């Protein structure tokens, strides 16, 4: 968990830093302009990263009932 939780920084870097490199229309990705496609990709990745963090976080293990 300790190391994995740092994955959560990636979307910040990807979205805020990435726009410097993908602020253009072409190439189109699945019909979307590159900038929009990049942001959509990071929404999907954000969800995936949070899922990884959730399932490796010991705080989310099922509670043992006495």
């Amino acid at each position, binding site marked *: 968990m300790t190391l994995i939780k740092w994955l959560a920084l990636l979307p910040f870097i990807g979205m805020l830093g990435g726009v410097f490199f993908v602020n253009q*229309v072409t190439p189109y990705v699945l019909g979307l302009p590159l900038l929009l496609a990049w942001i959509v990709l990071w929404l999907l990745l954000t969800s995936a990263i*949070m899922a990884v963090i959730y399932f490796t976080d010991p705080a989310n293990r099922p509670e043992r009932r006495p």
Partner: protein
Amino acid sequence: MSALVIIAAVTLLALWLGIQARRGRDMNLEQWTVGGRGFGTLLVFLLLAGEIYTTFTFLGGSGFAYGKGAPAFYILCYGALAYIISYWLLPPIWRYAKTHRLISQPDFFVRKYDSPTLGVIVALVGIVALIPYLVLQLKGLGIIVSTASYGAIGSTAAIWMGVVVVTAYVMISGVRASAWTAVIKDVLILAVVLFLGVYLPLHYYGGFGPMFQAIDAAKPGFLVLPEKGQSIAWFDSTVLLTALGFFCWPHSFGSIYTARDERVFRRNAIILPLYQLILLFVFFVGFAAILKTPGLKGPAIDLSLLKLSVATFPPWLVGIIGGAGVLTALVPGSMILVTAGTLLANNLYRAVQPGAAEANVSLLARLLVPVVALVAVAFTLRGGETIVALLLMGYSFVTQLFPALLASLMERNPVTREGAIAGILVGEATVALISLSHVTFDTLFPMLPQWFRDLNVGIVALAANFVVMVLVSAVTQRAAAPRPAAPRQ
């Protein structure tokens, strides 16, 4: 006519759901404001999403894409980043609120900083920010009903009817009504937005790719962030600011308290970024409208979705779209009313009358709902600003609570109550000054590099807030030490 019948039916369904949400509950204040802290993942999800998918999303999101193009994408980003933060931010807030049986956002600050004064300030900030938010919903409601009913019901009449409905079920069922109506709202809005966002580009352009190519050809540069103005620097600073302010809204804060356990938030942190994708389809509608209903300017850009729908679809379908639109106003509106009533009764009235009986505060909170609603109607019928501008000002106000909130969650809070109060006051004063004088970095520092001049000016307020908070804390800590710590429980 059929459009009108469907909109009326949806509204009545909301009214019925809202009223029956009370069933079997003894509505004390804790039930009314935070649902007895018994909501599971789904209801909390809907409440958190209920605040996000408002008329702002429906009309403002498509209008923003229509009028400004790529800068609208910032809305996709800030939500996702805010949900990441929520994974670590919300559980400690929820735990603390549960331990101390808190029911409102100011309660949290009062406890953490052991300062009723701070509670009053936070309550006032909340009310000042909530009113424009509510006005925004009512404005949207008026636009939606008058357009979707083909003018049969005027905007003013629609606003009055909406207000009566939402006030009635909020007074009866409180936040339970919000949760129940959020269920049909999200189902309907999901269906409508996905349909519109897929159908309109296909119908008018033959696909997403051809649509964007046509827009790029007609308006070069529209699908990227511009060199100056709403540039990359603007984008990044605005995304960060709004992500921080996300959970500082008093009604969002209140919906944190409704959760049954803290895992609810961590689970939602996975799902909500995906749910953001609905906004993508809202943008598609705005983009589709650019070449099909051109010429909307100023506040009228918020009409792009409805204008295109009316031009494209038969009345019954327009009615369903209108009904979904009405719900996007009623659900957040109901949460704002619950929160505003609670802030006024629990945090302002009780601050003046500390010995007030629980039952009286509870009754007063409910009686204040129509008062708040009337104030909002008055502002709605007078005001003239566009939807996004209004929301941004409220956002700047609540974001000023973030530094003191974050500090209070630290193991040893370095911020004193004087520091928190001074920081928030300076931050709010800066926001007010900036909003009223319309200054930007561009007008302040015309000689500095362009990227700096494009930064969101809200950063100044937050920075001033932070610096004052740290300085005053340093001074008062030395003066007051050793102060007995507030009793830990």
